[in-house]
């Protein structure tokens, strides 16, 4: 396992190439075989039979963005944890089990703090409940 050549990455490159070929081939076949009669109402976006009103590209809710932000933090944390997880078994076999367990658990506990904070503050709720500032009625 120690010394390999970069040829091990070759299938990935070939797969990317083949995906492009498959896509291109399918499109080419469709281009040759399918009828092309543009015009009329069929190239309007479908809105249940109504003529669409305005563009669909409108401003979107910020909650998607919050999900993305939280995801990236978790993603980076898991990236950092993977190398340690990969040598966990080896370190345990060498007799350093408790040492690496403490390292691993302290890292996860910080991750847990993060999720607990977000949970408590309601950032994980999809439908946010708002606190009223003014009382009516």
């Amino acid at each position: 396992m120690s010394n390999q050549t970069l040829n091990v990455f070759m299938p990935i490159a070939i797969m990317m190439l083949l995906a492009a070929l498959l896509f291109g081939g399918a499109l080419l076949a469709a281009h040759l075989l399918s009828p092309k009669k543009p015009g009329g109402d069929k190239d309007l976006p479908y809105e249940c039979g109504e003529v669409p009103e305005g563009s669909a590209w409108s401003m979107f809710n910020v909650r998607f963005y919050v999900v993305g932000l939280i995801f990236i933090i978790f993603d980076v944390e898991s990236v950092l944890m993977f190398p340690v997880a990969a040598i966990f078994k080896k370190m345990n076999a060498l007799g350093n089990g408790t040492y690496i367990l403490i390292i691993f658990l302290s890292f996860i506990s910080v991750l847990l703090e993060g999720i607990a904070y977000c949970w408590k503050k309601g950032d994980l709720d999809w439908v946010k409940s708002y606190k009223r500032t003014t009382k009516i009625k």
Partner: protein
Amino acid sequence: MENTIAGYFLSFAPVQHLADSLGVGFTSFLIFFAFCTLFLVILATVGGFGTIAERKISADLQARIGPNRVGPYGLFQLIADGIKMISKEDIMPRSADKFLYYLAPFLSLFGVVCTIAVMPFSKNLILTDLNVGVFYAIAISSLVGVGIFLGGYASNSKWSLLGGMRGASQIISYEIPVTLTIMMIVLIAGGLSFNTLVAEQAGMPWNWYIFHNPFTFIGFFVFFISTLAETNRAPFDLPEAESELVSGYHTEYTGIRFGLFALAEYIEIFVVSAVSVSLFLGGYHIPFGLLEGTFSNEILQFGSLFLKTCALYYVVIWVRWTFPRLRVDQLMSICWKYLTPIAIFNLVGTAIWIVAFDGRSMFDLFFGSGVH
């Protein structure tokens, strides 16, 4: 030699002879190219059969007959479907973003097809056993989310956009429990390459990682539920919820482009099921070390993996036709408030288990070391 299919073939004398004249790099390229094409053709066929399986099984569950006109038991329906897809007009909305509209199905397909490069089908029938195998698979499959989002955005249709936004946020959210659960298996196996992950699950079913300890048993279900959401399957099919969003992110896609989206989805289900099998259900291993070291052994291993994957595929379809769809807020709270904390709990539990019991499994502890 390397743990790739080219490395395996280069250990044979005739191929070695060929490599001497053509160069190792070019010979590897030829072998890789042949097998990549083979794998892609097989998986595209499997994806096509997936659509039939879905229709047949759903018909069965609803006491109908299902497609039965094309070929015996409607088995050639996929060819008919393919011809239909290709020969339909390829309509693009006038107001669509042309560049992204063309690109989106490609990204979706690209993300799925690239994961095949590290799929272990048998001990040597693995295109390349990368040292970061499973990590690479998680990484490259996140391209599917980008494809779905762009497909929804580019159509310039309100239904599509809603579906695309939902799809992208759902896929990135459920990637967290998936990653944490995979990390739990990595802790036990001690490596990220697929052969390492599968290696110690050899032999009888009680060596499978799903039975390694109580945490992995829970972990399997966390993983399975999360992958249902990752592949946009019911009950998590909100991006293409047909009763509210018409058809979600591919509402405006017609003809072959829709076909490619669908193909990517069905291949992805198969790939993800195969990953579940490799991580939890013993992978390609067969009991008793049957025909060890022969070529038939490889075929049996391939059959073992294929059967288990098809069984899981059946469960995925079964789940789709059994459970009602979730709401968006339920979807998010299941991910962030249930699956992610459970996955972290499993991870911690497994780490402690490994240190406390020196990495031994439940059955090993109960019945001694004689059960291997």
